[in-house]
């Protein structure tokens, strides 16, 4: 049975919740769907259960802030449906979802995608071994199951998240065997010119320094300028090997390695719909092209949050509120003047949040090896294809889709989420073209796997050809 709403919001993280609450307050009928069992997205994962506990206090105020928003969502009158995956959107808009193996259809005049971001795939030899996880995964385990590594853990990567997780882990009694900082030597110098502007968000910078201090006080071994890492082991990780930019090489015994090389917007839904995307050289990723309200190149389709560009939870909430205003304006519920007036303060605050980005993007620019893995490294995790396999198919000037057709890279269940960027970079390097020109896999539905039984049972009397 098809249901109809004024606005369907996909994703219950900071942006999705802010947008849904704001749109509802502006008088719209709003549906919010999310694939997780509880609201919060990734940054506020599990917040309803955890924020008020002592664990929550150790996770920090930024995390606990999500509890109030989740409560506001529950009280807002927004129709909120968790554990629901979106697998297709058709123009009109018609959304196709799946919940507990049951497919459903929703019609909405406007759609807001707040599907956030994922960690940037950072292949290295051994990254598919049990015991190698992303830092984000470890943090989610902390938030949703109060679990920590049972032995000293190695953390490798670059960005605010590894530092934050390391600090949280220490506060909760976890142990860190070593912190491998993979930020390349030139990053600090490159980031310096952006520092003055970044001081507008001095609070964030101080927080980062604070986390570093916690690590130093706990005597966590810190290795700077790590250019290469490798996870060794047969059935599980048993050792970590790393090399620094000045040529030092060490192999240390390890039972777990956490990796994080930045965050990239989730572009699968917007690419599947054919929206225009821009390549960002600063963040080394694609993001949908958006107007000042967050509308994509398709009328009635908006994006807010990290999916619009990596900028953190506060910026995500602001973008969500702005999108709600833009959507209400488009629906005729607000006139131009009212919309601009409501948006004014939000835009100023968003500007302050975005001011720190150039500095962070430069400071945490990933090392080149992330995009140029060794031949033996698995690139497509699903189909177990190596960098060598991709490089062999790159001869000539095939694009990512031809390479996909020939090698099966990108044809597994993750649909290119873990290999797409690597394949595009490998092609760019082999063909000496910019990545922006090489492009990305053509994304096709289903956006998430759906069973034949669910498809067969969709309420559709007509048949085709």
């Amino acid at each position: 049975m098809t249901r109809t709403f004024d606005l369907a919001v996909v994703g219950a993280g900071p942006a999705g919740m802010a947008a849904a609450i704001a749109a509802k307050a502006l008088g719209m009928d709003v549906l919010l769907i999310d694939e997780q069992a509880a609201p919060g997205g990734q940054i506020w994962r599990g917040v309803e259960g955890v924020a008020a506990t002592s664990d929550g206090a150790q996770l920090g105020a930024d995390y606990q802030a999500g509890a109030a928003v989740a409560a506001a969502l529950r009280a807002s009158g927004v129709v909120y449906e968790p554990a629901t995956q979106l697998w297709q959107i058709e123009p009109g808009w018609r959304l196709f979802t799946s919940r507990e193996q049951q497919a459903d259809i929703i019609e909405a005049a406007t759609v807001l995608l707040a599907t956030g971001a994922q960690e940037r795939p950072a292949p290295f030899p051994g990254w598919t071994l049990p015991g190698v996880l992303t830092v984000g995964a470890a943090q989610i385990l902390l938030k949703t199951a109060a679990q920590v590594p049972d032995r000293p853990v190695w953390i490798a990567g670059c960005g605010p998240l590894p530092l934050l997780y390391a600090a949280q882990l220490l506060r909760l009694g976890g142990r860190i065997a070593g912190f491998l900082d993979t930020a390349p030597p030139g990053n600090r110098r490159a980031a310096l010119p952006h520092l003055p502007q970044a001081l507008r968000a001095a609070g964030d910078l101080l927080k980062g320094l604070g986390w570093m201090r916690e690590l130093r006080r706990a005597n966590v071994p810190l290795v700077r300028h790590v250019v290469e890492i490798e996870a060794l082991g047969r059935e599980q990780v048993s050792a970590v090997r790393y090399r620094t930019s000045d040529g030092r090489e060490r192999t240390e015994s390890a039972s777990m390695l956490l990796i994080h090389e930045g965050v990239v917007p989730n572009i699968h839904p917007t690419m599947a719909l054919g929206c225009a995307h821009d390549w960002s050289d600063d963040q080394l990723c694609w993001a949908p092209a958006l107007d000042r309200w967050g509308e994509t190149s398709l009328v009635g389709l908006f994006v807010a949050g990290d999916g619009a560009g990596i900028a953190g939870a506060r910026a995500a909430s602001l973008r969500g509120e702005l999108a709600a205003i833009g959507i209400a304006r488009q629906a005729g519920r607000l006139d131009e003047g009212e919309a601009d007036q409501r948006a004014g303060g939000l835009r100023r605050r968003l500007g302050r949040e975005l001011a720190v980005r150039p500095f962070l993007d430069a400071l945490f620019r990933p090392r080149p090896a992330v995009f140029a893995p060794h031949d033996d490294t698995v690139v497509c995790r699903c189909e177990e294809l190596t960098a060598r396999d991709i490089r062999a198919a790159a001869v000539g000037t095939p694009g990512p889709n031809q390479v996909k057709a020939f090698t099966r890279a990108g044809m597994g269940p993750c649909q290119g989420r873990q290999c797409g960027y690597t394949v595009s970079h490998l092609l760019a390097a082999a063909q000496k073209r910019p990545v922006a020109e090489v492009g990305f896999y053509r994304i096709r539905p289903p956006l998430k796997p759906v069973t034949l039984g669910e498809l067969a049972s969709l309420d559709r009397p007509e048949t085709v050809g």
Partner: protein
Amino acid sequence: MVGAAVACGLVWRGAKVVAVDGGDGDFRASRANFGLVWLQGKGLGQPAYQRLTGRSVEGWSDFAVRLGEISGIDVHFQRRGSLVFCLGEGELEARRARLSRLQVELGAGEPDFEILNRHDLERFLPGVRLGDRVSGASLRPRDGHVNPLRLLAGLQRSFTLSGGTLRCSQPVSRLQPSGEGFIVEAGDERFAAARLVVAAGIASGDLAAPLGIAAPVRPQRGQLLVTERLEPMLPMAASGLRQTMDGTFMIGLTNEEVGPDTSVTVKAATSMSRRAVAILPDLARATVVRHWAGLRVMTPDGFPIYAQSEQHPGAFVVTCHSGIALAAAHAGEVAAGIVAGKLPAELSPFHNGRFDVPKAA
């Protein structure tokens, strides 16, 4: 696919060949192909097509071996037979009638197919749980199937390793007769040749016009679904349902007249799923990992065009929608005809002149 097969056949006969291919995002019929190397059910009303397809299907084993030897790529060709499942008695009867009529048109001796009722089918496919509405199937033991993506890779590699020159991502910008031969401009390059073969699928009409050959082709969309890898369940290819050597199931295809549009629809996904689940109910729990579409190259009567320009006899057009089943023939008799400068008499029913039907006075 068609061009690559013809190109291989030409270069194997000693010709010096340049093959020019379009962009990564171009409409490619080859990407939406089920990989069937079938004769079953084809050619109603045109026995020459049955004969052509029959020759190609029979010759496919040698063709696959040769491709494998030259390119090192195993195209996963298997000759296990073809099955067309029928739901309900009406479909089974209609299937029997169609295949009998085809046999009559062909005028051959023994039938090359069998009609299996439900009971026979269960014995033929032990361990396969059939849906309640499955009434039976038609079987043609001499048919086979192949991996279309590997086939294309195998053809292109065989071509280049046999001395052919391949240019990818270089769509033709200009093509015209010049003196005794032809000039082709693509990307930054300019090629001059004595013979020219246009095998550009739905772009063939436009490309062939300056050569004085009318090639009326239109795109016809075929959508298909691909599942995750499953344990082996179905040992042979069925129409609309095939388990590949990777273990994935391909389910499809639609036949839609929507112009050059490769977007996919949930409506089609639903109807394809319904039929698949009606045939093999266990598939209900399999997840679909990809849903995509390709464009078939359709001529007005559905049969190939093998034509030679009258004004410029060195120019040929080769186009069809069964590029895989006919690949052996394309690399064989069609390529031989192009090298000889004249297509063989068996292919004359496929000349484009057949579309000029004189109006009744």
